[in-house]
């Protein structure tokens, strides 16, 4: 961190944004916390859209042979529902937590590449807007979120939007992955070894490696699809010998790691919350961490279980059945360790705790139905029925979403300095649990009774039992919608007028709670030095002679309020001279250039593409010639590596 005087002379197009409040400050921010918050609110918007789409789906299927919407609309709606929930809700929801928490939990002041981080956010937002603009431009994609060729090659499937839109989102995810991997590997506070990292950090690391290796695969698949649809290439076209199954392999090579990308952050969150409210450390820390890594690893070797009924032979079916089944082992390890974290504790049933327990319970159901999918001969009965729909909503909604919401309740005080209403929180939890099971529980049955998925109407010939189950599902959404409104209300009311939380409302264990709530721009006035797993807890409690943990007496628990120390000023780290990255217009400017490229590719319209490319290149140049922070000469100081600098001195 160099300390030279700011120079602004060489700036050309834009002068460096300086606003600290207001609109400009948000669109130019490079602060990981603000970016995390923007991710979160964007996710809320898309969740409402995706939820509304699911409302349309369930309304149409509430009774047999309804014609509320046409088949054409229905197909667009369920495709967009899947795309929205996966790519615009659950994944970026995870990214919201990565952004906000990773630096705080590892004791860093920001991510490794703050502007790249802003870039990731804008790419996400614009990718979402691009996808949704399809509704206005001749119809949304209607080839399902799996985009199977050759259906997706058909002009009427609008899948060019899918190919290009997901590509934008992929760029966002890939750049975020590089960013977070470097951050976690390279920016941990002194003493924060791998085996001391909070479990959320572990799971983030695994998730981002999954992203790193999975996103390029879908990128290629999408390029092939796009070249096929827009430029007439022949990758998946059976007419000239192209093989549609290639798409399936590439999609699921990405797609299965993708589902673990969605669940692992959730598992990390739960692993943080359960210990806090059980007042015990995480049971089997090492086992949980390595199980997470194992899931990530094995997760790359099971993809063809989505293709058991496709054109693959018995040997492949067998091999993938085996790998799929055995992924239950590491997942089971986690489940049991969570349960035993609670075992013998003193459980406090706060809202985050309730959602976390709900996660463990509901995810197990989804996981078990996943294992039954792997019984290949019977998978041929289950595949593409509502039984699968039930499975993946149990793992995605009952799993990922429950845990992510637990995380919102848990870290809300960190972000805002206020508490969310526990009373409303409990209402939210119980209605959520009820509505969820009501919606998706019956789908197990209707699926086994022969209801296929992706049907624009519910065929009456499936019989009254199936109709009943569908009606129950549809009623469930009503409960869920009410529940979601309770949540929204709680969120907004608590942001405005929640009770003050103090710096450590939960008696937490990890060092993000060392900083103030909400944290200052620079997170930590003094970078904490870590000597334990659950560092913060160890600063508050010590063991007495009998090995019984006791609170550290007077003062000990105070000194974590580092703001105090900051106020007293320590060297150049009194919070005023901490050198932080400055805001920048360039990530936004560069991202805007992708709009003309994306719309130009649809046509294809060469001049539009050209305009966009030039724009992006200009944006890129603006970016690279702008220093990360004013006055920064943007290069490591290498002259004297041995000299201790700043408060993070050698330890």
């Amino acid at each position: 961190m160099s300390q030279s005087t700011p120079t602004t002379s060489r700036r050309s197009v834009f002068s460096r944004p300086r606003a600290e409040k207001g609109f400009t400050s948000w669109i130019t921010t490079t602060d990981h916390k603000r970016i995390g918050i923007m991710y979160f609110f964007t996710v809320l918007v898309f969740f409402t859209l995706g939820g509304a789409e699911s409302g349309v789906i369930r309304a149409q299927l509430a009774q047999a042979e309804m014609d509320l919407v046409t088949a054409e609309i229905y197909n667009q709606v369920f495709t967009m529902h899947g795309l929205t929930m996966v790519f615009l809700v659950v994944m970026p929801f995870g990214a919201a937590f990565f952004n906000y928490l990773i630096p705080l939990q590892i004791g860093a002041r920001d991510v490794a590449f703050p502007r790249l981080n802003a870039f990731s956010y804008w790419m996400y937002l614009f990718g979402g807007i691009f996808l949704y603009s399809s509704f206005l431009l001749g119809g949304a994609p209607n080839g399902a979120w799996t985009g199977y060729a050759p259906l997706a090659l058909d002009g009427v499937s609008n899948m060019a939007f899918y190919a290009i839109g997901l590509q934008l989102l992929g760029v966002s995810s890939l750049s975020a992955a590089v960013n977070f991997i470097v951050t976690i590997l390279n920016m941990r506070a002194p003493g924060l070894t791998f085996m001391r990292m909070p479990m959320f950090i572990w799971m983030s690391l695994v998730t981002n490696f999954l992203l790193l290796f999975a996103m390029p695969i879908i990128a290629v698949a999408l390029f092939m699809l796009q070249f096929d649809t827009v430029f007439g290439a022949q990758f998946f076209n059976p007419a000239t010998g192209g093989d549609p199954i290639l798409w399936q392999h590439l999609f699921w090579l990405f797609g299965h790691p993708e589902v673990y990308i969605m669940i692992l952050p959730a598992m990390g969150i739960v692993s943080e919350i359960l210990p806090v409210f059980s007042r015990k450390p995480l049971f089997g820390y090492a086992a949980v961490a390595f199980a997470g890594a194992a899931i990530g690893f094995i997760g790359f070797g099971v993809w063809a279980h989505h293709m058991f009924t496709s054109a693959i032979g018995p040997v492949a079916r067998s091999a993938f059945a085996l790998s799929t089944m055995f992924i239950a082992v590491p997942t089971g390890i986690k489940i049991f360790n969570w349960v035993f974290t609670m075992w013998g504790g003193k459980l406090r049933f706060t809202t985050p705790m309730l959602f976390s327990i709900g996660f463990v319970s509901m995810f197990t159901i989804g996981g078990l139905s996943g294992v039954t999918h792997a019984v290949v001969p019977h998978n041929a009965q289950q595949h593409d029925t509502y039984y699968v729909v039930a499975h993946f909503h149990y793992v995605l909604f009952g799993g990922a979403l429950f845990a992510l919401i637990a995380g919102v309740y848990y870290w809300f005080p960190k972000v805002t300095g206020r508490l969310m209403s526990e009373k409303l929180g409990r209402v939210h939890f119980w209605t959520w649990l009820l509505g969820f099971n009501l919606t998706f529980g019956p789908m197990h049955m209707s699926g086994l009774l022969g209801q296929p998925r992706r049907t624009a109407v519910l065929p009456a010939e499936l019989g009254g039992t199936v109709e009943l189950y569908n009606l129950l599902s549809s009623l469930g959404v009503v409960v869920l919608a009410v529940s979601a409104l309770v949540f929204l209300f709680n969120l907004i009311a608590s942001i405005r007028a929640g009770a003050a939380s103090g710096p450590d409302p939960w008696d937490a264990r990890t060092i993000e709670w060392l900083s103030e709530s909400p944290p200052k721009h620079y997170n930590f006035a003094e970078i904490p030095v870590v000597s334990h797993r659950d560092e913060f807890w160890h600063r508050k409690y010590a063991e007495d002679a009998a090995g019984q943990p006791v609170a550290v007496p007077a003062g000990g628990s105070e000194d974590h309020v580092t703001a105090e120390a900051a106020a007293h000023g320590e060297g150049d780290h009194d919070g005023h001279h901490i050198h932080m990255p400055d805001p920048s217009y360039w990530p936004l400017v560069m991202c805007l250039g992708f709009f003309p490229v994306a719309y130009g590719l649809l046509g294809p319209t060469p001049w539009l593409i050209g305009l966009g490319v030039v724009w992006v290149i200009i944006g890129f140049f603006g970016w690279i010639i702008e220093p990360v922070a004013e006055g920064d000469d943007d290069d490591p100081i290498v002259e004297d590596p041995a000299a201790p600098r700043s408060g993070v001195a050698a330890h």
Partner: protein
Amino acid sequence: MSTTETHDPAQAAGGHVDHHPGPREYVRIAIILAILTALEVSTYFVDFGALAIPLLVVLMGIKFVMVAGFFMHLRFDTKLYGRLLYGGLFGAIGLYAITLIVMSFDGAPRV
């Protein structure tokens, strides 16, 4: 600052350590690469029989490792970089090999 992680100052500040090869070594390596390439291309003119393909694969591997090791300084930098590179490489080879095997030998017949 150094943390509890292993931190070998000689490896730090990648690219600034003296035991990097100098221009002379680089040229020497380039010459070797040129010879290997010539050998590769020779398979086009000379018949190596059944040996040709294994030979090509080995030559490709050597060239790859040499460029990565010397020009990209992998041999002199932290092991982590190599792990990332070769992790990606072997990960990709593994996954796509399985895919190709499944598609070529356990797929459906064409009609």
